[in-house]
């Protein structure tokens, strides 16, 4: 029978900041950019996010997503309506640009690489998961996405005040992480010591992403080497 959603994430060893320009009112409504070529899935993810009090922009392709982000311009991650994007959730299998390709473009961009990207896929293909996590995806969620997944993501993004020790993180996190498989709701774990932080551009930092990410109640696969070849 159906169980709690499966997701995979890296065991982060650095903190990453999420810049939030809407801090004036103190409200921290997250703005999520959702990318999926399926009508049905866009509608569902939009509802999941709205019910979790997030602002949503749902687009149908990687190209549209990049347009929305204004990747062609020199701006930081401000969309058409001036709203900062706090999280990108993208389907993996899309015609044209795949979610992986979108992920790469985002991580290669100095303006946007700090935005956490979550990949969603109906297919649990381990090399695919590896590849996405290594490229810097925050998490890989097996579809269908559930409310508990969104809640977890939101908590993850919102938390971090207490984790913010002035540690600044780098955003190209590949080749430095191993990862956990998690098949159950997360429990907290203590973070490993972060590496020395590289310089980062700063704006007003409201949120940052905690390195004490979930699951170590997870099934850590001990046979897996820390550094995996790119697939």
């Amino acid at each position, binding site marked *: 029978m159906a169980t709690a959603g499966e997701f995979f994430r890296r065991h982060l060893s650095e903190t990453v900041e999420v810049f939030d320009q809407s801090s004036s009112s103190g409200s921290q409504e997250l703005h999520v950019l959702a990318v999926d070529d*399926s009508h049905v899935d866009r509608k569902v993810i939009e509802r999941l996010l709205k019910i979790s009090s997030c602002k949503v922009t749902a687009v149908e392709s990687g190209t549209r997503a990049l347009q929305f982000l204004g990747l062609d311009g020199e701006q930081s991650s401000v969309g058409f309506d001036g709203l900062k994007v706090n999280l990108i959730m993208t389907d993996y299998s899309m015609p044209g640009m795949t979610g992986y390709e979108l992920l790469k473009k985002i991580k290669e961009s100095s303006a946007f690489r700090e935005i956490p990207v979550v990949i969603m896929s109906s297919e649990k293909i381990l090399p695919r998961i590896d590849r996405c996590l290594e490229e810097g995806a925050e998490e890989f969620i097996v579809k269908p996405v559930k409310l508990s997944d969104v809640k977890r993501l939101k908590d993850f993004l919102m938390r971090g005040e207490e984790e913010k020790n002035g540690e600044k993180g780098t955003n190209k996190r590949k080749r430095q992480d191993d990862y956990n498989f998690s098949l159950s709701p997360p429990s907290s774990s203590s973070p490993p010591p972060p590496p020395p932080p590289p310089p980062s551009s700063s704006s007003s930092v409201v949120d940052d992403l905690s390195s004490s990410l979930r699951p170590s109640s997870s099934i850590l696969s001990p046979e897996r080497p820390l550094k995996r070849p790119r697939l």
Partner: protein
Amino acid sequence: MDSVTQLQGQLVDYTTSLFNEGYLNDQYTQLQQLQDESNPDFVVEVVSLFFEDSERLLNELDRALDQQSLDFRRVDSHVHQLKGSSSSIGAQRVQNVCIVFRNFCEAQNVEGCLQCLQQVRHEYSLVKNKLETLFKLEQKLLAARGSIPTQ
């Protein structure tokens, strides 16, 4: 027993049977939980999108499987989409046929694909029928009173 109670009972029974017979799975329940007063038609809207998508994809599949030289990747791509959307609304039986269908695509088995197309059309029309009946029951209940019972 007043008509509202009766309708409520019918609705619960009917919904339960759909789950028991494997037409719907927990994902459908997830969708129901996303519906509220601010979004009272959410489930119907999502399911309608599913119907639209499915009909389009089934027509594409008809075309793709009608070719002289079959492009299995094209067929697989459509089935993958159908599998995805059926999974997103919890249409378990449609989803299951899609899984088998994709295996036949991978094996480049024409006969298997043709059989699956027939089967997936059949399952789709069954679940469409069931869901439409379900929605009609809900409408009747709404008309008779106010809210739909939560599961």
